């Protein structure tokens, strides 16, 4: 029995399914890897309010294909503050607070201003096995800061953060139940944050 066109489908495809179905998957990588990137992109965009998300299939440095499609995007607020930068930010905030107080402002709050920075995201599945070599290959293809997305409407000529001197990617691990966890992986021995 043919289904009348006017009826709605019994089961609507999920938004994620629709996104993957709509997107033109890149021919340079396996479809499952590209779909994985789209899944993480969807999660970041709608659950963590990231903006300017974009899938990179080729390295901005060498233009070679990346080991797998990577994402780049802008978080709503700063994702990572290096402890040394944190100290500098606190000092600046303290100075401005004192200056405000002298000017007769009643508010005594310490305002720390750390503008969000674009981040690389490496989508992975929990069932995968990784090696140091593969991780190193991923870092070889990434730049220090992801290139600005073309469609980005945010201000682009912000001076590069002088504290950002090591490469980092956000490791996004997707579990079979579609939970996504995010870990920051830095290239090199970088001291931990003082949470």
């Amino acid at each position, binding site marked *: 029995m043919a289904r009348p066109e006017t009826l709605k489908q019994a089961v609507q495809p999920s938004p994620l399914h629709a996104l993957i179905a709509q997107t033109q998957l890149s021919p340079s990588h396996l479809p499952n890897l590209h779909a994985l990137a789209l899944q993480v992109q969807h999660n970041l965009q709608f659950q963590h309010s990231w903006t300017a998300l974009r899938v990179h299939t080729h390295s901005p440095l060498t233009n070679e294909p990346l080991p797998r499609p990577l994402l780049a995007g802008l978080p709503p607020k700063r994702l990572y503050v*290096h402890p*040394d930068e944190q100290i500098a930010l606190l000092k600046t905030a303290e100075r401005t607070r004192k200056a405000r107080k002298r000017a007769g402002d009643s508010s005594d709050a310490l305002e720390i201003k750390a503008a969000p920075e674009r981040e690389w995201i490496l989508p992975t599945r929990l069932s995968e096995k*990784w090696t140091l070599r593969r991780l190193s290959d991923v870092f070889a293809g990434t730049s220090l800061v992801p290139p600005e997305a073309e469609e980005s409407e945010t201000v682009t000529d912000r001076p590069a953060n002088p504290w950002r001197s090591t490469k980092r990617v956000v490791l996004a691990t997707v579990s079979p139940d579609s939970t996504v966890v995010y870990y920051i992986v830095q290239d090199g*021995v*970088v001291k931990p944050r003082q*949470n």
Partner: protein
Amino acid sequence: MAPSVETNKATFNAALLPSFTPAPESPAPTEPAEPVPSTNRSSPADHSGIEVAKTTPATSPSVPEPFPISCISNRYFVFDPNTISHLRRNHNICGVLIGTIPNLSSQNVFLGVPLQLLPEEARVLVERGVAFVVDEVEGHKWFLGGQAVSTVDDGKDVVKSIKGNGTRMSREERLKWLEECDRQGRARAHAVLHEKRKNTEKVLKEKGLSHKLEDMTSAATPDLAEDTGGDSLLFDAPPAPTRPEAAKDERMLALHHTTPTTSYPPLPVPTLPVSVLPLPKLTSSIANRYPLFRHLHSQGYFQMPGLRFGCHYTVYPGDPLRFHSHFLATGLGWDEEFDLLDIVGGGRLGTGVKKAYLIGGEDPDAEVQGVGGVGNARAFSIEWAGL
């Protein structure tokens, strides 16, 4: 060096103390060969995260290098307190103190010498040329004048020079030594007894009973005289006019013995061409993690065993007594597969205790860039992103 179970903890602690006292932050421009963190970036971009504790070298006996590391049944030990503090102060090596007191062997809160080294620690010291490994059993036999026993290990570098008759003791010397032990034991027992008597008299005097003691002794002496009255015919001299309990104590005294805690004669510190073992072997489990250990050590980090945090090493930016650790490090082979679940677990545990999880290994393809054969280790720090 003799494996003498030296339990004199007071001396040991005193020897270590100077390095533990927080030294004033005096700008010492002529710092001894401290491994300088290799930062090829300019500040403020120094993200290597190293604030190596600079301790001003306290006045302590200098330890000549290379110094011996004792190998006993494939474990590596340091027995000399000066060497232990030297290791800690100048070579970022902590090791683990494992020595306990023979008559309180179950207490394991405060442990002393010897210091046990990880095979990685022993190897890194030997590679840097500041130490050599001595087969303790053969060295001991050699020094005590035993026969040359050198089992042919598969290691080709074993120096089989154990022929010397060393400082073997003759029978007379040994008897003399035992006599000396007895003499010391008696002297000690006398001292104890003397103290005991003094205390007794003091207490009795305080209670006003000192005259009773006199009475007791004066009363006891005639008894003794009566008892031995018949014997005085047989023996020339009547018993000495000492108190009988004293005589009894004197007889008891003969039973006291001292147990020497060191070998005799004291063995000299071995110098180089004595039964030197090859580099500590890298068993398969250690081989993969060793490059990361060496890399972090060369950057001036202190490392301790990491079992408590489920990793190979906990990595400290300075002396562990003064700093919290920064990293939970796990060494891996370059092509060794790991589960992402381990990364998630390690990263989350590390972040929970204000540390970063560190994985690293040696890149066999990278061109040699390390200075002094430090190798091409590469490391990745992992922290929870907070999303």
